[in-house]
């Protein structure tokens, strides 16, 4: 039933009961997926709000553009690979190929961990170049945005590590399938977010 139809129905009118015992749900999805999508929207709101302040602050007259470290391109690559690995892992999981799903899943985490390390190096480079968090608004936003993104990546890695342990152990593929799927969606989200951030940070 469409949302509009549902909202405009007259609930006091008698409706013959339907067959079966299934619960009522608004979306044909596992609740974890609904919750994750909702969370991604919330995270999206956080980043959009920082984004808006970024563009407002950009116009306030004391902006000194940052030259973006080349390392960021490498880091972007790491995140892309991480995301691709997860997608392969997910597809393997659906094809019931446990070994492939496991190896690609582990690999994606390692690449993402490398991304975290890479971002850390970028911060070191900037600080070494005399661009601290309080040097100018551009550097402040750089640290803030990359930092916020990193927190989200680390949160993802925490969930990833729990699943990874289960995969390394004897867990049945069927029981971790959902986790792999969730990680995959979240990683794609992190990647898209990063690309948008990168574009915004590079384009000043």
């Amino acid at each position: 039933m469409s949302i509009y139809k549902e909202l405009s129905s007259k609930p006091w009118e008698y409706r013959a009961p339907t067959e079966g015992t299934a619960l009522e749900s608004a979306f044909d999805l596992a609740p974890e997926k609904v919750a994750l999508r909702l969370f991604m929207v919330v995270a999206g709101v956080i980043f959009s709000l920082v984004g808006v302040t970024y563009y407002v602050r950009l116009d306030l007259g004391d902006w000194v553009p940052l030259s973006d470290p080349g390392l960021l391109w490498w880091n972007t690559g790491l995140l892309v690979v991480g995301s691709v690995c997860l997608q392969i892992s997910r597809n393997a999981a659906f094809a019931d190929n446990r070994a492939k799903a496991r190896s690609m899943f582990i690999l994606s985490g390692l690449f993402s961990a490398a991304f975290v390390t890479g971002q850390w190096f970028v911060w070191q480079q900037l600080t070494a170049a005399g661009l601290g968090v309080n040097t100018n608004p551009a550097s402040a936003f750089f640290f803030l945005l990359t930092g916020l993104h990193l927190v989200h990546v680390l949160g993802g890695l925490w969930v990833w590590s729990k699943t990874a342990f289960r995969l390394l152990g004897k867990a049945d593929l069927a029981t971790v399938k959902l986790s792999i799927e969730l990680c995959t969606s979240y990683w794609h989200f992190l990647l898209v977010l990063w690309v948008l951030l990168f574009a915004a940070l590079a384009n000043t």
Partner: protein
Amino acid sequence: MAYVPIADQAQELHDPHSFITKYVWSQDHKVIAIQYGGTAIMVGLVALCLSVAMRLQLGFPDSFSLIDPSSYYQAVTMHGMIMVVYLLTALFLGGFGNYLIPLMCGTRDMVFPFLNMLSFWVYLLSVLILLSSFFVTGGPTGAGWTLYPPQAITGGTPGSDGGIFLMLVSLGVFIIAFTMGGLNYVTTIFQARAKGMTMMRLPLSVWGILVATVLGLFAFPALLVSAIMMTFDLKLGTSFFMPAIMAAGEQLDYNGGSPILFQHLFWFFGHPEVYIVALPAFGLVSDVLSTHARKNIFGYRMMVWAIVAIGGLSFIVWAHHMYVSGMNPYFGFFFATTTLIIAVPTALKVYNWVLTLWEGDIRLNTPMLFAIGFIFTFIHGGLTGLFLGNVVIDLPLSDTYFVVAHFHMVMGVSPVLVVFAALYHWYPKITGKMMNETLGKLHFWCTFLGTYAIYLPMHYLGFLGVPRRYYAIGSTDFIPASAQTLNENITIAAIFVALAQILFFINVFWSLRSGKPAGGNPWGATTLEWQTPDTPPKHGNWGEKLPVVHRWAYDYSVPGYKDDFIPQTVAGDFGVSDDHDSKES
């Protein structure tokens, strides 16, 4: 792939085995609800004491004042922040939301019980961090609950040493807790309703809580972002919100930031926050009114649409808090218009509450009295909102006691009356005992009349132009000495109301031991939570089988039916829709 897990399990995974897992590290939504509600009420009592301290200073500055200027501003700040965020938000969503969503939707628990438990403990942590600011050097922040920079983090404001930092951290932690809870509430409502419980068969309580939670999920990020950025300004020396300014004759190491930017972010959270508190109250009071008027809620569909519309509109009115903030004055046209548009769905809700009583069979018991009291105070508070929303009237009235009176009426007194209505209404389900009616009614009269005695005169202080957030009025050429008489009376009324709350606590604890047994459905209500096999409901709520829903939540006094209510679980068409032409087959 619809949601099935819990219903299919004979024994739930998190079935409690010991006292600790049953009452402390509990994953049962009902226990978590009580933990949430209890914590919120405790911290609310702290805020209540702070308000008494403020009122004593304002009413009797020379004889009964307990506080100095510095602690006055700290009390103002902590009172406001605690009441809005840590009491009302937590109580309505963490408390009532947790208790009622699974019961009203007909499920065994929240879909993520562990996350739900975590949400409470993280919330408790945020409360402890907040309260710890009372014990650090310099005390809690005195920046006002709006925490406007630059003053929030510069030396002329009390608590700029540690208080403001703890406040910002506590808010961040609270938002994490809220997000964990909020994702849970929304997902549960969307994905795990009992068979037959369509969205439009949900009681309005669930609708109010649902939309408020969605608002919270989208609005709290703005507070989170502003808190993080202000923490950067405070601790790392960035200049997001800090322009070049002086302090004690020295130029501070800031440059170029925008204080107004913070205000936009803050109110982008702050205005929806009003509705995060109000919408659950709207929902709960609708159910209380309908049950005790023995009549269906009038205009259910428009009530739902109004909740959704108000929720949506609440995101495009925020700058009406900033008419005199120095933002581009042309924004005033837009925000005054959107703000007054909100009045229409809100007014419709009021009409429908009153029309629910019309041609009802009204039982004037304690919850009903509180609900009717709410309609009165909400009409009052809503109408004064039309003053402040109209940009030009805001010029003389903003930052005066008119604002204080308005928002206390509309989001202090009104929601609190609903909280009491709801507690008296659902207490029998929570504990299995009835509350004492005599004490309850006494509590109602003291609270209702007392709060009106506080806030009606306060509007007139505002008309006079008495500024808010003043430790002392001092001497002016426009405030007559009689204003002090008004202040004294307001203080007396405030202390009276504060003391009257003791009646409530006596009632809660007395009834727990000695209240009359309530039975499963003492009010003759239709909604699912009153149809549980046990009262109070046991872990898992529904015994062997989940309920199946056959009708909407408001089949009261259906013509031709033997009782004056038909529970949602009762199957069958009783000819109700004969009066209405469109019968689906």
